[in-house]
């Protein structure tokens, strides 16, 4: 027996290993009971609450719920990590790991009972309740010993992986998941929702730009919806940070297109000035235009790209259904 239970192995490395196992095994036990509580709440009862022993359906059920899962989890964990260790280390590790679990569950329950804490229900005889916890505590330590013993049997040795094997499996699983997710994203047909792009651009535009559009629309009798739509599309194609770079680039070459409306100028101009220039030069007297052809022509005069024209029309339709232009209505 002395060879099976022995603490002569205590050295830094083994101690570190055992403490790590205590953390790992208790974490797994905690996860198990949490998952059980979520999945079968009507079957779950707190492992701290000895009252469940009396209130629960049957002794068999209580024993099965309270002891079998922790025993199995610990046996498997020890089976993996204690392959290269002696039986004395395995049994000691088992008792320590189970002792930690017992402290966290029954030990805490005893503490709460003594403190008359509101966290635990006190039924009839407190001493009796405490003694039941103490018995469970001792029984768990014994169970820890048995886990350690069992983990060194050839059966458990066969069915549990080595640490290297476990690591390899975890990496394989992780890489497989990443690869599957990548392929799924790659081959899932997912078209870009242009309305979402328009919406984001609109909500990202400086408010002063829309205020300027309102002003120049009155001044030049321009369609505010058309101007806003063009700004939205220009903001997508040339976001603010790009426009800033264009302004910086002017130190090298002054003449270029500037501002959100991309107006040709011999010197850098702001977004607001570019709106006024574009409204006067390209979009004056568009306030009452309703037909697809006339609006499309105005856009083409500004930018002759067919794709650009179609995007602006999408933006117009997005902003205002009254101004909505539909090809089928031509």
């Amino acid at each position: 027996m002395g060879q099976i239970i022995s603490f002569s192995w205590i050295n830094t490395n083994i101690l570190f290993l055992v403490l790590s196992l205590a953390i790992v095994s208790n974490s797994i036990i905690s996860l198990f009971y949490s998952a059980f509580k979520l999945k079968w709440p009507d079957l779950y009862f707190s492992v701290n609450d000895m009252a469940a022993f009396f209130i629960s359906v049957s002794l068999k059920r209580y024993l099965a719920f309270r002891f079998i899962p922790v025993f199995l989890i610990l046996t498997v964990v020890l089976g993996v990590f204690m392959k290269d260790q002696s039986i004395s280390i395995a049994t000691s590790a088992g008792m320590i790991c189970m002792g930690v679990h017992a402290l966290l569950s029954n030990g805490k329950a005893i503490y709460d009972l003594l403190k008359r804490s509101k966290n635990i229900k006190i039924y009839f005889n407190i001493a009796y309740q405490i003694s039941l916890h103490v018995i469970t505590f001792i029984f768990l330590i014994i169970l820890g010993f048995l886990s350690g013993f069992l983990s060194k049997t050839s059966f458990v040795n066969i069915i549990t992986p080595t640490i290297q094997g476990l690591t390899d499996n975890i990496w394989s699983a992780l890489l497989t998941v990443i690869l599957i997710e990548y392929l799924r994203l790659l081959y899932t047909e997912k078209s870009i929702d242009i309305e979402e792009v328009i919406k984001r651009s609109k909500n990202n535009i400086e408010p002063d730009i829309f205020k300027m559009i309102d002003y120049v629309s009155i001044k030049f009798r321009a369609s505010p919806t058309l101007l806003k739509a063009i700004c939205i599309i220009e903001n997508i194609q040339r976001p603010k940070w790009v426009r800033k770079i264009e302004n910086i680039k002017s130190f090298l070459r002054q003449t270029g297109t500037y501002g959100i409306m991309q107006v040709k100028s011999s010197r850098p101009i702001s977004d607001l000035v570019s709106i006024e220039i574009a409204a006067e030069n390209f979009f004056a007297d568009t306030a009452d235009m309703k037909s697809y052809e006339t609006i499309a022509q105005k856009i083409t005069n500004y930018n002759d790209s067919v794709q650009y024209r179609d995007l602006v029309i999408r933006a117009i339709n997005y902003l205002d259904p009254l101004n909505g232009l539909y090809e089928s209505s031509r």
Partner: protein
Amino acid sequence: MKVVGDNKYFFITEVLDSEHKGWVEVKIDDLIFRKLPYSTKVELLEETSKYQRIKILDGYFKDHYALLPYQIKKNNTTYSYLSSKLIYNPNLILKLKANTLLIGGVEMKVIFDLNNIKKGIYNIKFPILTTKKMNNYFLEMKGGSRFAESWFPITIADELYIERYIHFGTYSYGCVTVKYDPTIIPGPWQLLFITLMTSRKSNNVLANLIIE
């Protein structure tokens, strides 16, 4: 904080885009969030960096106060949902006869059952947002409308219990349904929603419907 001067009457207008679908969410009386529809008349009381405080002047929340967020807010600049310009039609009358709804010179096909909705003159009231699933009717390139969720209650005289509506989509009992047709682009509901929302007979009545 900015207290608004003389020009303090505005309308909720910047909500016709596909994101807002004709409505904007406000906080009523600092308590609950509700949506106000396009063309709601408001009195602007004050402006802060986060919201505009308004008094609602028509619709179901008339005389209540609300906090209206900004449409766009970046750094210290804002762009509002409000506009000072909106022209109401004060005397809009819709006529319904033999499954055709006449709005000015425009005809729309509707479905209704004279056994369930009698002839007479009805008040068309401020819209509500239906809880029915209208997802199939949003696609405007297939005859749908972004305003499909807006249903207009219709009542006779001072009738209190409203169970009749003018709405878009497929037939529902006791209602006048503007028929969904994927071949008609743009769909008729676009025009009907805007026409009704730019009409006012009183604070809560938009127009009249005559069923012949």
